[in-house]
């Protein structure tokens, strides 16, 4: 059990170092995902399956998708296909794949062994839930308030006045549409071009 813990820890440290030294944002995001997954495996080995699931779902799932969305929004059409083709060379994804492969082998080993937990026994989600909504009730309320504040702040900061009116889709086309005799290819060819 200790070997699995230290292996996952080593994977986390290596991937974090690789993440910090990459020059390309997407490459570091790949390594960051591997690092978070390694931390999740660490939690699982330590006997905290609920924390491991949360780490994998919230960090590696939701927050990384948020990062990727921002990266995509900022990279609009300047470099285009050239850099994208450059990103798909095997030298880029072979490192994260190796590290993630180590993690997968380790998870398979732990699940096969059946006994999660570096010490004795695991703390399941039930105890966590009971503690969360028992003595830590006020903490839950504070966390919800913090999330609400984050939501409002992110909305306010992301808000941007629309400079041009929205594109209105042409809805009243039925009377203007020429009869093409069921030819779907030509249908709508005489519609006025949409100005953007």
């Amino acid at each position: 059990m200790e070997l699995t813990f230290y292996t996952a820890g080593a994977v986390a440290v290596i991937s974090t170092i690789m993440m910090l030294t990459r020059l390309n944002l997407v490459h570091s995001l790949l390594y960051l995902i591997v690092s978070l997954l390694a931390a999740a495996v660490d939690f699982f080995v330590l006997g905290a399956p609920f924390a491991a699931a949360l780490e994998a779902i919230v960090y590696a799932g939701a927050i990384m998708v948020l990062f990727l969305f921002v990266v995509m929004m900022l990279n609009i059409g300047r470099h285009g296909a050239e850099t994208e083709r450059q990103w798909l060379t095997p030298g880029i994804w072979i490192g994260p794949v190796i590290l993630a492969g180590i993690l997968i082998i380790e998870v398979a080993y732990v699940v096969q062994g059946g006994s999660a937990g570096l010490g004795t026994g695991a703390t399941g989600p039930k105890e966590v839930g009971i503690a969360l909504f028992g003595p830590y009730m006020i903490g839950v309320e504070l966390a919800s308030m913090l999330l609400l504040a984050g939501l409002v702040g992110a909305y306010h900061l992301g808000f941007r006045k629309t400079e041009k009116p929205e594109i209105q889709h042409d809805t009243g086309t039925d009377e203007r549409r020429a009869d093409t005799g069921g030819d779907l290819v030509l249908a709508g060819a005489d519609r006025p071009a949409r100005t953007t």
Partner: protein
Amino acid sequence: MLNAAGLAFVVGGSRWHQADGQVMFVFILAMAAAEVAVGLALVLQIYHRFKSLDVDAISEMRG
């Protein structure tokens, strides 16, 4: 850094067989999520205002 703090909490919780460590980890997770949302919104706002993410170009403060 937040991950390291959460890992420390989980280790402590598993050492004494208490659920408190994971409870603290849940709180850290919520805080990190809120923080990331605000930070990314800031980055977007900077990009829209300066059309660049070069921190050297964004030197509006005098001093």
